[in-house]
């Protein structure tokens, strides 16, 4: 079982990145596109080979999928604590390899058409490769520190790609926002890592996740403020995950991140990087589940559920199609989180875990597809706004069909991929927590509604006057659409419960027909409403807007979260903390030092008049001094 070749999967994009980055100016754009695609194609093939080998050839022993680790020391902290670099092969990492590979490859191909003629074509592919490298590194990480390292690297690739149109101020500030918000979350992650490292003495997932290992068994040994320190650590780590996965209230960067080129949104902000948070929780799932009886896991569940609901509500009111998709992403990520949150560990109990991973997989396909379709539409009409679109089905048939497939998939209509994964999630939620279940069902309805709202808004509805007649995108762009659409259709039939489960043993999952019926019903209801409101021009939608009144306004302004954050950063952090510190430094700290200097000068200024230049003064001082000295001496002698 030699799997050292797996190291090549991340390394090839890295080499491509270095190549394109260093010879940026000297490479013809067309060549760089081919190099990028080719590099990723190799990685993709290797990923598929790995998956085949792992799942079907050697992965299983005694009915349980084994974890294979190959690693080498990267840096020593102490005699026992070190950062290792290596690859870890287990079901979720292999699954993530597949997800990343497919989406990334599709996006690479798509970008060749989408970015054609752009100034920074080579740079774009370089950054894409950097991102792919980081993402592969992240999913293959063997320990917390390695995942943190790649975590930061995906963060920075995301920063670079969001700020790709760097002359546009909105893109610059969006990139900055994304990086700083996620960095803030990473602070929690890092502190969590430090705590884990200190109290368990290891960063290795194998050691940490072993249900019979010291880390999990001794969770109660140290407590802080009523909770085990490990619970705190897991909560902090979850904050890191929540930052990347745009969970409430760290979600504000995701909608703005849509300033990046659309392929980037598809790759990073829909399919891969944003699921890193979910992946992180899944990666540490045994710890979440066993430490303090899943206290931290409950938090994950509620945060996920709330984010799902919150984002879905906002998505209904947005008019920028990419933002609708962004909030939809956030909502679906909430879904995955809540699925993890309601999951158990053994066998069928771990349904939530399996469902979450399943949904992650399916979502990656159809959400990437949605974004790429949106990109195709934007490419055609040169606008992000719903009001500039309408009736495009005639001009862009392929985009129309693929978008419809994706929308049906996300709405949970059988037999598309979303139906199966969402159904498993709802079943898991129903079995563990009814409240979360109802939230889930409601969100499913909302999802169907807003997704078909934009679908009808774009492809049906009133035809807008276009300056240039929109046309279907080139084959390099539609090919990925078709591939992803195909995957969105058949993806649901993959028997995930055989492969990816919490205890790695696999189980038989069955459809729960009553619950599935409810979910499908709600989805169809949402689609029906959207049909009624938006398929043809009518004023039903406006009536609804008026009906909800101020609530609509809040929602479309995203509940003013951006403003709150802006207030905290600009008003409080910049003006109430930073500016006073800068002033304090100038005025008091520096002032004291300069003051000491000035006092010295002042003193000498004062005493220099003693040196008046008048001989008489000196003579007087001399005489008086002699007299005084003599008196002193006499006094001392006589005593």
């Amino acid at each position, binding site marked *: 079982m030699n799997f050292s070749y797996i190291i090549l999967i991340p390394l090839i994009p890295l080499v491509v990145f270095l190549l394109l980055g260093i010879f940026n100016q000297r490479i013809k754009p067309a060549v760089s596109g081919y190099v990028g695609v080719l590099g990723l194609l190799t990685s993709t093939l290797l990923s598929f080979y790995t998956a085949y080998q792992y799942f079907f050839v050697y992965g299983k022993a005694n009915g349980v999928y084994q974890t294979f680790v190959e690693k080498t*020391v*990267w*840096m*020593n*902290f*102490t005699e026992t*604590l070190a*950062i290792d670099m290596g690859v870890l092969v287990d079901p979720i990492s292999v699954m993530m390899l597949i997800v990343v590979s497919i989406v990334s490859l599709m996006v690479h191909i798509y970008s060749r058409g989408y970015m054609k003629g752009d100034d920074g074509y080579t740079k774009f592919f370089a950054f894409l490769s950097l991102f792919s490298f980081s993402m592969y590194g992240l999913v293959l990480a063997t320990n917390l*520190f390695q995942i*943190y*390292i*790649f975590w*930061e*690297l995906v963060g*920075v690739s995301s*920063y670079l790609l969001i*700020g790709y149109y*760097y*002359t546009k*101020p909105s893109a*610059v*500030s969006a*990139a*900055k926002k994304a*990086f*700083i918000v996620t*960095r*803030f979350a990473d*602070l929690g992650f*890092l*502190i969590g890592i*430090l*705590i884990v*490292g*200190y109290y368990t003495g290891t960063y290795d997932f194998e050691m940490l996740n072993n249900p019979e290992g010291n880390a999990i068994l001794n969770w109660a040994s140290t407590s802080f403020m009523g909770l085990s320190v490990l619970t705190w650590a897991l909560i902090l780590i979850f904050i890191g995950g929540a930052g990347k996965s745009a969970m409430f209230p760290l979600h504000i960067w995701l909608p703005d991140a849509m300033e990046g080129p659309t392929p980037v949104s598809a790759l990073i902000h829909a399919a891969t990087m944003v699921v890193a948070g979910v992946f992180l929780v899944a990666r540490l799932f045994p710890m979440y589940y066993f430490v303090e009886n899943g206290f931290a896991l409950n938090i994950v569940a509620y945060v996920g559920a709330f984010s799902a609901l919150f984002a879905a509500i906002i998505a209904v009111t947005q008019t920028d199609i990419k933002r609708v998709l962004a909030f939809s992403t956030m909502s679906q990520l909430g879904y995955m989180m809540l699925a993890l949150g309601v999951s158990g560990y053994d066998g069928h109990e771990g349904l939530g875990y399996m469902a979450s991973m399943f949904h992650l997989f399916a979502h990656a396909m159809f959400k990437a597809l949605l974004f790429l379709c949106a990109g195709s539409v934007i490419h055609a009409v040169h606008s992000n706004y719903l009001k500039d679109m309408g009736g495009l089905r005639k001009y862009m048939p392929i985009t129309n069909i693929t978008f419809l497939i994706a929308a049906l998939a996300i709405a949970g209509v059988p037999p598309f991929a979303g139906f199966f994964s969402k159904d498993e999630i709802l079943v898991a939620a129903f079995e563990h927590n009814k409240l979360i279940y109802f939230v889930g069902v409601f969100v499913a309805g909302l999802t169907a509604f807003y997704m078909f709202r934009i679908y009808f808004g774009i492809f049906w509805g009133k035809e807008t006057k276009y300056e240039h007649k929109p046309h279907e995108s080139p084959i390099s762009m539609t090919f990925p659409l078709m591939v992803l659409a195909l995957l969105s259709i058949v993806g649901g039939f993959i028997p995930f419960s055989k492969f990816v489960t919490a205890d790695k043993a696999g189980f038989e999952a069955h459809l729960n027909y009553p619950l599935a019926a409810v979910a499908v019903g709600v989805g169809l209801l949402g689609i029906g409403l959207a049909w009624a409101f938006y398929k043809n021009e009518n004023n039903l939608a406006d009536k609804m807007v008026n009906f909800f009144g101020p609530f609509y306004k809040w929602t479309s302004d995203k509940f003013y979260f951006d403003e709150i954050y802006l207030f905290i950063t600009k008003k409080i*952090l*910049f003006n109430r*903390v*930073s*500016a006073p*510190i*800068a002033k304090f*430094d100038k005025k008091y*700290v*520096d002032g*004291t*030092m*300069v003051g000491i*200097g000035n006092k010295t000068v002042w003193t000498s200024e004062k005493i220099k008049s003693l040196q008046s230049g008048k001989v008489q003064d000196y003579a007087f001082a001399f005489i008086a001094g002699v007299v005084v000295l003599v008196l002193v001496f006499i006094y001392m002698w006589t005593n």
Partner: protein
Amino acid sequence: MDILTLFIIVPILTILALVFTKGLKQARIVSLIGSLVQFGMAINLVFAYFKERAVNSDIMVFTKDVVWFKEFNIHYNIGVDGISVALLLLTAIVVLAGVFISWKMNDLPKEFFVSLIVLSIGVYGFFISLDLFTMFVFFEIAVIPMYLLIGIWGTGPKEYSAMKLTLMLMGASAVLLVGILGIYFNSNADGGALTFNILEISKVSIPIEAQKLFFPLTFIGFAVIGALFPFHTWSPDGHASAPTAVSMLHAGVLMKLGGYGVFRVAMFLLPEGAMHWSWFFIILATIGVIYGAFAAIKQTDLKYINAYSSVSHLGMVLFALLMLNKTSWNGAILQSLSHGFMTALFFALIGMIYERTHTRDVTELGGLLKVIPFISAIYVIAGLASLGLPGFSGFVAEMNIFVGAFEHEDMFYRVATIISVSAIVVTAVYILRVVGIMLMGPVKNNAFLTLEKVTWYEKLGIMLLLIPIVGMGVAPLWLSDMILESLHPFIQGVL
């Protein structure tokens, strides 16, 4: 001639050769040759060190001892361990890069290069000395040329800055001298011969009362040059006024003398004092870390931003040293190295930007990525390195510091650690702010469109600094292990 004394001799020879040069062209060629030789020697030293270390397990290797002032038992006593080797390499690289960056130094080139090399003599001497007094002498040699370099070749209120810097550092030296003499007079409690030799002093136990008295003096004396809050204010003004190469050398190397001195003298010779006082200085260092970062957010002058960022980063070094364990000490040394390369790179880039646009005010700049892509891209990379991105040296250093600092269990240390850790977010804020305003966005001034592209010597200077940053960040193992090994005898003293 032994391998270490050459580090003093070669610069002296360079200076002698410089005296006979005429004009910029000859001066820079001579300095370049001198610093290239120095650079080669530093690399050779690394290999020689590994070779020697394999057969020699003394604390210091390549030692040599010559009496030069008998009455007070002052020796020219030199030797290196892994830490000094790393710092010597840093110095050689930064000096070489500094020569490249000063390629077009048109005013009084000869005098400029002479001062620069005198400064480097001080630094080299400081890192190889094992005798407190000799160390102090070299320390002063390093500080004095700063006055000339800033006062003559500087910009802006240069006289004021030069004066402020020199006076504050001199003040610190005075305090330091008291500390060193305190150590000297307690170096033999049983009434034997007094000594300045660090290794010998470390073997005797200085009375606890004396340690408590002299630790703060020694610590502050060294830490002022390491920009300890609230004695950091010389640094923003000094850096802002200094010419590019001097800023590089100063922030990159000279400020490292502080951390190194604290470690070699204050911590090593006065361990009980260190433990007694650590809480107090941890508070100062923590304030410095977070305070420097916040102060940097509001600055508009590029050099001020970088200077405050140095306050923050070097605060981290002192913070790590005060944590008194191997991991954090390793982090402190790595952070010194990493900050040395990074900040030198920053100052080099700022110098290039200033040379082209004639302003350092961030608000006047914009869209530079479009007009000078190479410099701007490297600035972004340096920025990312500075905010502790994995793959660059800063990350390696900071993680060591944090993991080390986290080994203390009690609440005080925990809080201090978490505050310091949170500085990484603030760092991101000010770095990205500059990157966003200055490099990205639309080109603000049409005059920028004709800016000169990067030249070969600038590229060389940049690459010299960038390679170690990336090297340390990607493969930290050999360096970190070399330092860890050298730390061993030092940590024994504390435990």
